[in-house]
């Protein structure tokens, strides 16, 4: 008895992109984020982790205006992080907005940016403050999970419940996602432990 091994024709297999390779090897999007965040010698995270951290709602950035100057100073670029919230339906309560505003003043550049996809962005958070800032968001029942990266994003639409019956329904649904229980569940979601170090 012989078994026939079926292989897909080689020409049709497209090699995985670099990001896909990083994702696949990342142990559920953990990568080496813990090591990167604990590395005291740099304000940056490792190259592969710059891809993975997007799924946790953050981008690493650096001040381009200072790049050349800091290289002259024999210093690495001025790295900082952007944190983007993911708000179901774009709904935010006044107390949540106040909490975000405080975080932006304490750890960020002092500004809050509102995006077309109904998210908030905090800029200029340095590495050592990432954890505290994200914990502060979680305390206000907001999270940043899957706010960046190649994931489905918020739909761009008005969140006003009086606009139409459909808007009202959607708005009602979002309340279920913003319940304390939902937020707590998301905090304990599989990949959060690597951010909450």
């Amino acid at each position, binding site marked *: 008895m012989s078994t026939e091994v079926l292989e897909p024709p080689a020409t049709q297999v497209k090699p995985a992109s670099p990001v896909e390779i990083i994702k696949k090897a990342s142990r559920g999007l953990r990568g080496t984020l813990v090591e990167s965040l604990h590395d005291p*010698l740099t304000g940056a995270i490792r190259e592969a982790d710059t891809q993975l951290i997007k799924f946790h709602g953050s981008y690493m950035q650096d001040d381009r205006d200072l790049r050349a100057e800091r290289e002259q*100073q*024999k*210093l690495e670029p001025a790295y900082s992080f952007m944190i983007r919230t993911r708000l179901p339906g774009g709904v935010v309560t006044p107390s949540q907005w106040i909490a975000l505003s405080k975080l932006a003043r304490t750890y960020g550049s002092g500004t809050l940016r509102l995006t077309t996809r109904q998210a908030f962005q905090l800029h200029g958070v340095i590495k050592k403050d990432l954890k505290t800032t994200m914990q502060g968001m979680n305390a206000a029942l907001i999270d940043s999970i899957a706010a960046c990266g190649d994931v489905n994003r918020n739909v761009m639409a008005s969140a006003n419940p009086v606009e139409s019956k459909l808007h009202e329904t959607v708005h009602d649904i979002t309340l279920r996602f913003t319940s304390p229980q939902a937020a707590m569940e998301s905090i304990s979601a599989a990949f959060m432990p690597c951010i909450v170090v």
Partner: protein
Amino acid sequence: MSGGGVVIQGNFPIPEERRDQLQQLATELNREQLMWLSGYFAGAAAAAPSSIPAFQNNLLGGQARAPLANAAAPAGFAPAAPAPASAAVAGPSLTIISASHTNNGRKISEKLLAAVQALGIQARMVKAGDYQPREIAKEKLLYIVISTHGDGDPPDEARGLYEFLGTKRAPQLPELQYSVLALGDTSYPKFCEAGRVVDERLAKLGAKRLLPRVDCDVDFEKLAKTWSDDALARVREIADKLKPAGGAAFAAASPVAAAPAVAELTRAQPAIAEVLANQRIVGRGALREVRHVELGFPGLGALYKPGDALGIVHRNPDSAIDAVLKAAKLDAAAVVTHEGKTHTLLEWLRDERELTRIARPLLVQVAKQAKVDIAELLGNAPAMARLTATCQVSDVLASYPAEWTPQALVEVLRPVTGRVYSIASSPAAVGDEAHLTVAIVGSDTDRKLLAGAASKFVINTPTDSNVQVWIERNERFRVPADGARDIIMIGPGTGVAPFRGFLQEREATGATGRNWLFYGGRSLYHDFLYQLEWQQALRRKSLHRLDVAFSRDQAQKIYVQQRIRESGKELYNWLANGAYLYVCGDASAMAPDVHAALLDVVREQGGMDADDAQSWVADLTGDGRYLRDVY
């Protein structure tokens, strides 16, 4: 492919019977085997002492100048004694520098590298960000793949090399053969500008183009391939030409220029050095300014070793001179002869006299001249301390008005004592240069009153100007003679300066011992002195461990001594295994704190009581393995 047909001619230093063996070997072995052998002999030659002085010179020179020849011995070959990193290279060694933001440049470089290596030719590829610009002096064969960005700018990672080639410090490169592949975009006005500039700068330094530069647009593939093919062909021609020469490759190595004999420098007999660089090396948020200064003159490298300090003969600033002249009501043009020297008063005050620090004798002399009784002041220690900390000579002269003659003033003032700075470089790495790490006294907001005259002088000494310098030897503070020993370096702030030199020295001499650095500053973002260099050294594995403490980056202040305690176990193990321990920097707080931490570590890890720990550390000092340069 056979390597036959090698004819050995000319002045041949090998006995007849061996010559026949060699001839036979050369006919029987194929090309790859011959390549391997050339590396084998180079490694063996470097490990064996030479009977020919010129050879020794060449090898010693090579040690300092050719750290890239690591790959000289073929893989799998382990000589009896480890060949120094300098083992002379028989045959060409190609370096490919890849300088590109996108991956395109790197891919082209990698492909070319693989093709060259497939021919059995020694080659390496370096990303521009990891390339030390000074290495260029050692290159013989160089290909550069470089992209252009924005308004004709080089990629950030290549900025160092790009700028270095344009300065007057760039070495002449008559032995270098090179070619540049430029990547760009014709929709920008300065198409392939970075490639063009690098190409022209190299040519201007005397290097020869192996191939004309090729400028590629966004559809670069075809042109890049043509250039790569040509580049490969040229390297192959050179390798073929060199191949039969065998040992002649040694003779072709550039002779090492004998170091000019220069007498020991002193403050009284300084040398004139050119300021090659003088730049701020802390970020915008730093509370205290620190500058990196590079000085040089022919022969300087022979005059110092890492651990030594360099003195700068500074001139007092015009403002201080004017203040003194005004307080003493004297004319700058008056001529004064004192202790055999004749200068105008201006020259005395500018070059020869201390105008910043006030000492007790000066105060006494000035009071005497002013006919004031200051016994009470002299007896009041806090008042004296405040006075010396906040006042300069002109303040004292103004406080005790008197009738001065130019002669009396010159006699009363103290001769200037120069400021010396730990040298932050090794001649093995930087040649005839010395680098300094200078904290600018007086830029602290709380100490602005006492702007150190020397610091001010350093700030106001631009690149290309000249300064008078001398060397202060520090024989006690040296890297271990035995390169296999581990070293631990504790140098917060500008105390890190000599350790930059130590690391350069250990790397250039191929020391095999491990290097561990403790650094401390206020903030990771603003005053991590030489951060990029340490990061690169860690990647190169020439620095094995780096522990940092930034005091203001968290609510609780953290200093190096805490890191020492945290790493107590490893630290004790290193020391017990013969490591050297070095401390450099502040003598008033840091050094005693570090010493206390060391005693704690030894007590805990060695299971000793306080007395035993004390004598263990004393033994360390007695062995010359606990060395301090604190001030």
